[in-house]
Structures are given as structure tokens and as C-alpha cells.
């Protein structure tokens, strides 16, 4: 069978073709055993049979799918495609004691997308039923429940290229979810560019993935992309990976997999766990593309991984940095395949003073700052770096990254204002990311938008602030959240809260409640600082300034203290430059 690299007008046509071959999806459990084999031929057959039962929901209706790494998700997702419905993958991750927070979050999204039906595997179904209670969802169930729907003789007309392929909720905050609307044409445009120009696939390529199905890299890159290129994928659940990161490498070695993607933290996690004894039994010499994306790339994390896995035949040249976002399906640019990380060293002092990324001169009395090349934009992408006033910036000037492409979303579902904030009338997308071009290659330097990215996950400061404002002693606009960089380059979340309470016991009690709420909702540790009223800086229009709060916070505490404080429960400060107690 000829390899056809995502050159199809729609996903159903891509699966019709993939089903003619022998490839498909393999599922492994946390012990590394193969549990299910789902060839594309069987996936197509089952998806079409189920699609006949789903079509009663009405063309274009949204179907919420808790995106647990499981073959039933695949069958439901592709059944929605054949039934011309819009699948909406939802997160399948719960934190310790996080029952309530998770149910609330699911409910927000099921409600926001006005889901006509909602699906989960048995692990998540009780939580989903609880989340959907009282919402106008016609049917909530597992695959067995959907199999009971009345059968129709025929499938409807397959989706057209201009119809929605899926809605994705990666971008929104937990309080205000934003579902990116991606059409069949957009996702196919992006996949075609990725697999022909980002990195060209061959018949020998085999993927391994532990990426969650509710994240754009896992959903679009793997669940859709590997199918659209007829590649086989070995799947390990994200939770199983987080517990046993070594399984990633063991299974890749065993199956001679050639391609796997991960956010930088995944490489860091695996590098920390690997022992010299492990590497003896591994052979990673077939691994030709080790994709990196989803968060700022810390070169030292990848270097640690490459060093640890060198004895197993891992080649650092396999690292393939990339840049993208759910708003344009998945990817904007890829670095050069086989070249590894390409670093641009710039004058760090000049960069902070003037936003100019001038090459660093060895021995110069300035700070050196290293950025990783994300490569030139894919074909079909116009990318511009613009100043705050919208003016186009020349090479080596840092500004906001804007882009235009057929891959870009139609907008956020049912949210005209948030859509208008990022998408102009002539369809330029304001990415909210900061970066610069040098020799036509894109370098990411930071974010213009107030967003925290912790372990590859987007966390909106508004969500942390609202958890604080839910506490009885905290008033609206008394909290401000941002991130600072921790000792090893990770982002550390900080929440500064104004309190009127002076009793240390009451303060400690408030800090406990905040930690509890944040941990249930996000599973992260957050540094909490309690300050007196009127400490938080405001803009001239009276709005809280997160950037100002962050700057003041960094002025109040030196770096070492912040590192120490990451292990403390909270800080109390008088809002002045020196902390009074901890």
C-alpha cells in the first residue's frame, strides 16, 4: 500500500484509506503488557457501525468525550466523524482529593459546548454522570450504552471540508473554557504540512506516545496524524507514564519505534528515573525524531536526557524542537530534522533593556541568554513579529508573534468576544507568545499573555485568583497570580493575597485552605504570600497589574529566598522590600 501523507480532504477519507492497510493502534498497560490491538481496518468498521447509531443526535451536534487513553475513545471519536458530529475531547486527569474540582471543570465544558451526548470509559463514567446532572445532555454513558441506541440503515453524508472536525478545550481557563473550533480543512492542512515538511515520514516509521488525548500534541499529532499517515502507534496511558516513565523507553526499545514527542518535562522526568542498569538493556538507536513542544524548551533538560540515554544509542540529533498551539490545530514550525537543538546565544542585558536579540560575543561583559530554534514556519503560514503598537518588527527584534494560515481555527465556540481578542477580521491570530526571527528561523522568548505553563499544562492566573477570592476573608481583586522561575528552570506558581487578618493561626489556616483548593484543582504546589491591604499595584485604570505584582514580589524576596520558600507553606510580608516572617 502506498504511503499517503495526510493528503485527504477530511478525516473520514483518511481513515477509509488507512483501513486498507495493516497498521493501527496498540495499547500497553502500566506493566508494559500489550492489552489491545486496534487496526485501522477494525477501527473504521466499528466507528461506522456506531456512527449509524449516533446520527440521531443531529448533524453537527457536540459529543463530549472524556479523553482517557483507551480504544473506546478512538471508536467514539471516529464514530462522531462518520456520523458528522463534533467530538469534544475533555481532560481525563484527577488530582489527589480532586473529585469536586474535576467534576466542576467537566461540567463547565459539557455545558459550554452544549453537548448533546457525553461519553466516558468505566473509570470516569461516574464522575461524568455527576458532572452532566441537570444539563440538557440526551445520553451520558460508556460505549456499551451508546451501542444500545437505535440503529439507522445508513450513515449520513460524510463531513464536508468546511464542517468542524472537533472542538478542543486546551486554551481556556477552568472558569471560562474556550473551545477552539477546527474544521476538517484546517486540521488536514496542518497535518499535511507537518508530515511532509515538518518531518517527512517513511514506511518504516512507527510512533510511540504517552501524550494525553485531550492535549493538541496527543490528539492532533498522534490520534489524527498517525491515522492520516497510516502509521502504527504504541500507546501508554499518561498516568502510567507519569508513574513509570521508564516504560516509555523500554517499549520504544522493544518495538524499535522511530518517533515520539514529549513536552520538555517528560524528558526531564525520564532522565531522573533512568539508572545505568536500565540503559544496558535498552536500544534506542532506531529513535530518529524525538519531538519537543508545548512549553518553553530548557536545553539543559534535554541534554540531561541525551547524556543518560547515550549508552542506549540515543542520538541528541534526534531532538526536534517545534512550536504550535491548539488555535492552529497543532504546529506552526519545526526545527531541522536530524540537526538536534540549535541554540542562538544573545546579549541578555541588551535583550532586557531594548528587546533586541543581538548575538552574544564570547567574553563580552554581558549576560548570555540562550534560545532554542523552532525552525522556519511551515508552508502555508505567514508569521509576523509585531511591536505593541502593531508595527512590523525586523529580524532580531522581540515582539508578539502573529500568524495567518488555513490551519487557524474558526474561533472559540460560542465566544465572540474572546475570539475577537485573538483573531482579527482578516484572520490574523495573535498568539500571545513573544519571540524573534533570525535568518528566517523563529525563536520563542516568552509570553505576552498572563499564562502559567507548569509541566506542559496551561494554567490561567485568573483561576488561581478566583480560588483565593472564594475564601471568606479574601475580597474580589485581593489576589494576584503569576509565575517565577525556580531553581532548575521550572515555572513556580505564586499567589499573592491581601489579607486584613493579623492572627498567625488564622493566616496559617487560610494558607492551608488555599493550598488544598489549588492542589485539588491543579495538582501543583503554589507559593502563597500574604500581604497587607493596598499592597497590590494597580494600573492607571484601577485594574490589578499581575506584571507589577510579580516585579514587586521579586523585589521583596531575593532568589535564594524564593527557592527556599518553594518548600515553605507560605510567606507573610509587610509589602515592603524585606519579609518580616515566614
Amino acid at each position: 500500500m502506498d504511503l499517503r501523507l495526510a493528503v485527504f480532504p477530511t478525516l473520514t477519507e483518511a481513515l477509509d484509506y488507512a483501513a486498507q492497510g495493516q497498521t493501527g493502534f496498540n495499547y500497553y498497560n502500566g506493566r508494559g503488557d500489550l492489552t489491545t490491538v486496534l487496526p485501522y481496518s477494525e477501527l473504521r468498521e466499528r466507528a461506522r457501525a456506531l456512527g449509524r447509531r449516533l446520527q440521531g443526535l443531529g448533524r453537527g451536534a457536540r459529543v463530549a468525550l472524556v479523553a482517557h487513553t483507551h480504544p473506546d475513545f478512538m471508536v467514539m471519536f471516529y464514530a462522531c466523524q462518520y456520523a458528522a458530529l463534533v467530538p469534544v475531547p475533555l481532560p481525563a486527569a484527577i488530582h489527589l482529593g480532586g473529585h469536586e474540582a474535576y467534576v466542576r471543570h467537566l461540567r463547565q465544558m459539557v455545558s459550554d459546548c452544549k453537548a448533546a451526548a457525553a461519553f466516558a470509559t468505566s473509570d470516569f463514567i461516574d464522575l461524568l454522570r455527576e458532572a452532566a446532572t441537570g444539563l440538557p445532555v440526551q445520553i451520558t454513558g460508556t460505549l456499551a450504552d451508546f451501542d444500545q441506541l437505535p440503529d439507522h440503515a445508513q450513515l449520513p453524508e460524510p463531513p464536508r471540508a468546511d464542517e468542524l472536525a472537533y472542538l478542543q478545550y486546551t486554551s481556556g481557563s477552568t472558569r471560562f473554557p474556550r473551545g477552539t473550533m477546527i474544521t476538517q480543512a484546517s486540521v488536514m492542512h496542518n497535518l499535511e504540512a507537518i508530515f511532509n515538511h515538518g518531518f517527512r515520514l517513511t514506511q518504516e516509521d512507527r510512533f510511540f506516545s504517552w501524550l494525553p488525548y485531550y492535549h493538541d500534541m496527543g490528539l492532533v499529532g498522534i490520534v489524527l496524524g498517525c491515522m492520516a499517515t497510516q502509521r502504527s502507534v504504541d500507546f501508554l496511558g499518561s498516568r502510567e507514564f507519569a508513574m513509570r516513565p521508564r516504560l516509555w523507553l523500554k517499549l520504544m526499545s522493544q518495538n524499535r519505534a522511530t518517533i515520539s514527542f514529549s513536552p520538555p518535562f517528560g524528558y526531564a522526568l525520564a532522565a531522573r528515573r533512568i539508572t545505568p542498569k536500565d540503559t544496558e538493556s535498552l536500544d534506542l538507536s532506531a529513535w530518529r525524531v524525538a519531538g519537543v513542544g508545548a512549553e518553553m524548551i530548557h536545553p539543559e533538560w534535554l541534554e540531561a536526557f541525551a547524556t543518560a540515554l547515550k549508552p542506549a544509542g540515543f542520538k541528541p540529533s534526534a531532538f526536534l524542537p517545534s512550536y504550535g498551539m491548539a488555535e492552529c490545530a497543532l504546529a506552526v514550525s519545526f526545527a531541522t530534522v536530524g540537526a538536534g537543538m540549535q541554540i542562538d546565544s544573545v546579549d541578555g542585558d541588551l535583550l532586557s533593556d531594548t528587546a533586541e536579540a543581538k548575538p552574544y560575543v564570547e567574553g563580552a561583559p554581558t549576560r548570555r541568554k540562550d534560545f532554542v530554534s523552532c525552525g522556519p514556519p511551515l508552508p502555508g503560514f505567514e508569521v509576523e513579529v509585531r511591536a505593541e503598537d502593531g508595527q512590523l518588527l525586523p529580524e532580531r527584534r522581540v515582539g508578539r508573534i502573529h500568524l495567518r494560515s488555513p490551519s487557524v481555527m474558526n474561533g472559540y465556540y460560542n465566544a465572540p468576544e474572546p475570539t475577537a481578542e485573538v483573531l482579527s477580521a482578516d484572520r490574523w491570530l495573535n498568539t500571545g507568545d513573544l519571540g524573534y526571527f533570525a535568518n528566517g528561523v523563529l525563536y520563542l522568548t516568552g509570553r505576552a499573555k498572563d499564562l502559567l505553563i507548569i509541566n506542559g499544562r496551561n494554567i490561567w492566573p485568573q483561576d488561581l485568583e478566583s480560588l483565593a477570592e472564594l475564601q471568606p476573608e479574601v475580597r474580589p481583586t485581593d489576589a494576584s497570580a503569576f509565575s517565577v522561575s525556580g531553581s532548575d528552570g521550572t515555572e513556580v506558581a505564586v499567589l499573592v493575597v491581601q489579607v486584613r487578618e493579623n492572627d498567625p493561626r488564622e493566616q496559617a489556616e487560610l494558607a492551608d485552605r488555599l493550598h488544598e483548593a489549588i492542589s485539588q484543582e491543579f495538582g501543583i504546589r503554589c507559593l502563597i504570600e500574604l500581604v497587607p491591604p493596598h499592597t497590590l499595584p494597580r494600573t492607571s485604570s484601577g485594574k490589578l497589574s499581575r506584571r507589577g505584582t510579580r516585579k514587586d514580589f521579586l523585589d521583596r524576596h531575593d532568589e535564594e529566598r524564593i527557592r527556599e520558600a518553594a518548600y515553605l507553606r507560605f510567606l507573610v510580608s509587610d509589602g515592603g522590600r524585606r519579609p518580616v516572617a515566614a
Partner: protein
Amino acid sequence: MPEATDKVERVVREALKIACPDIGIVDGNTHLASELGLDSAQVMDMIMEIEDRLDISIPVAAIAEAHTLNDLCNSVRRVAGEA
């Protein structure tokens, strides 16, 4: 207290110690995330240790209900059929 119950608690405490080596004495009612500051990576380490030592698989729903060390022990006992 029956012996089986003691075993679960001992394993959970050992797992916690491995995930979080510099932890002190932990009371059964201590909130694991808010008071001990366990992040999701440490939680995963702890769950893995418990699963491996007891040869069980802990479902996500059991994690979702556990706030304190005692909650977690109870969840694990139910999964291990030792409730």
C-alpha cells in the same frame, strides 16, 4: 486492629516516605496535598510504590476521594479487598 489493616497503612507510609524523603512524622488526618505540599509528580511516585508493593492497581476515582493519609489508606484497603 487486624494485621491486614496494619500492612496497608505501613505500605502507604513507606510509599509516602519514598515519594517525599524529607517528610517528618505524619498524622493520619494530615492533608497530603495542602499540608505536606505533595505535588502531582510526588503523588504519582507514591501511588506507584503502593501499587508495586501490594500488587494492585489503584483506580483514578480512589485518588479523587483521598484528602488525608487515612482516606488514602481506606481507599487502598477497598481496592486490595481488605476493607
